């Protein structure tokens, strides 16, 4: 240990550059560091904590950076990208569900049978509501409730991103099925199921909403099983028109519900 550069410390604290050997001493001498900390015109420990905190901050993921590149505000982008149902594992699971349902069809195409993607897509979309947002699934939920973003709006923002992701996945499976595929006939039932899930979630919790959306679609499927005209039930023009009508009605109800009760989510109190 070299000698303490006592005389220099006062001038260093005023901004004079110490010689190289004194600098090396300062790097390893606690006593001099302590003296300089006492003399410094600002809090050196606090400033270093700021540097360390910045270095520890997580780097934004790909999705977050893409959203920011498309003009989404950084905070909203981080919030959206943090949706549990947008994680790679969840998306892969979605793809697996869609693929497994689609596989038998791809192997043995039957033109009269309903499209496999059609069967699975609304279920996946409704389930995504449960894992898009809420105290039960979101590690960042408590932090989010302290922000100006209201719970229902948060749910919608997340859900929009989740729906886009699932639409892309279902589209990929649809394309992979080729001629036997449903030709995006799943889009309207999927939207209707998701909207129903959101509407219910806005009154109760995301999990209840997801159950409602999935349950409604399972009822439709039960009707299809009992019907003697399965194709008409699902992909026929009448059926598609019915899905569109249901989706529009649900959207209107959701808008009205939001206009009435504001952006609060009744189930939010269970976060406590």
């Amino acid at each position: 240990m070299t000698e303490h550069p006592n005389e220099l410390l006062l001038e260093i604290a005023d901004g004079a550059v110490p010689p190289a050997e004194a600098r090396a001493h300062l790097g390893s001498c606690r006593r001099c560091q302590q003296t300089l900390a006492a003399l410094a015109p600002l809090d050196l420990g606090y400033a270093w904590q700021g540097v360390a905190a910045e270095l520890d901050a997580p780097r934004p993921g790909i999705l977050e950076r893409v959203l920011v590149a498309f003009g989404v505000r950084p905070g909203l982008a981080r919030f959206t990208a943090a949706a549990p149902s947008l994680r790679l594992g969840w998306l892969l699971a979605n793809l697996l569900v869609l693929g497994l349902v689609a596989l038998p069809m791809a192997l043995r195409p039957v033109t009269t049978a309903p499209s496999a993607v059609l069967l699975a897509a609304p279920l996946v979309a409704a389930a995504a509501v449960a894992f898009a947002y809420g105290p039960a699934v979101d590690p960042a939920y408590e932090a989010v409730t302290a922000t100006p973003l209201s719970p229902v709006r948060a749910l919608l923002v997340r859900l929009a991103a989740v729906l886009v992701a699932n639409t892309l996945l279902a589209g990929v499976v649809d394309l992979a099925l080729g001629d036997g595929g449903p030709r995006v006939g799943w889009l309207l039932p999927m939207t209707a199921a998701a909207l129903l899930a959101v509407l219910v979630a806005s009154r109760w919790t995301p999990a209840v909403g997801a159950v409602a959306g999935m349950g409604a679609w399972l009822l439709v499927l039960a009707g299809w099983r009992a019907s003697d005209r399965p194709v008409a039930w699902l992909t026929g023009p009448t059926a598609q028109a019915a899905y569109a009508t249901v989706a529009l009605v649900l959207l209107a109800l959701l808008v009205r519900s939001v206009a009435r009760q504001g952006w609060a989510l009744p189930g939010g109190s269970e976060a406590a």
Partner: protein
Amino acid sequence: MTGVARAEVEGAGLAARPAAGAATDDELVGAVAVGDRAALELLYRRHAPWLAGRLAARTSSVELAEEALQDTFLAAWRSAGGYRGGGQVTAWLWGIARRRLSSLARRQRPGGLSLDAAAEPRDPGATPEEAALGQDASDRVRRAVATLPPEQRAVIAAVVYEGKSIETTAREAAVPEGTIKSRLHRARLHIRKELGS
């Protein structure tokens, strides 16, 4: 500074690696360039004190100076790969710090460059190396300290020359820590004036 904050600065890591303490500044920046965080910490311990003094002299806002100091080391962390070497670490760091302070001051006061940040009221030389301290400075400081009132001289002696903490000094003098801090502050103003004249 709180005890916790100081523990952060002096924290583990480099203290356990005696070889790192002997590294030159150039070697440290080289290590920072490949992501060695301990090297950044050591660089901070060596350079943050004088950078803090310079930054604080150029703005009346402690917060602004603190932010500029943080930004300087974050920028150093990110751009260490661009450092050309040649023993110019102090000039390199001060260049970053001055630019950061200017841009922070501009952002805070829209409509004009901060005069404090733009002007160089107390810059002793064009590059920091030219202002490096030596034996000459020690004598001047010692003479300035000798002209202090006894109470302030005692605090300088305890804190600077004996390396005692503010807490210890306060306890031994049987006065509150705030009193020691204010004596220290007044002593520094006095010394700065003496050295400037």
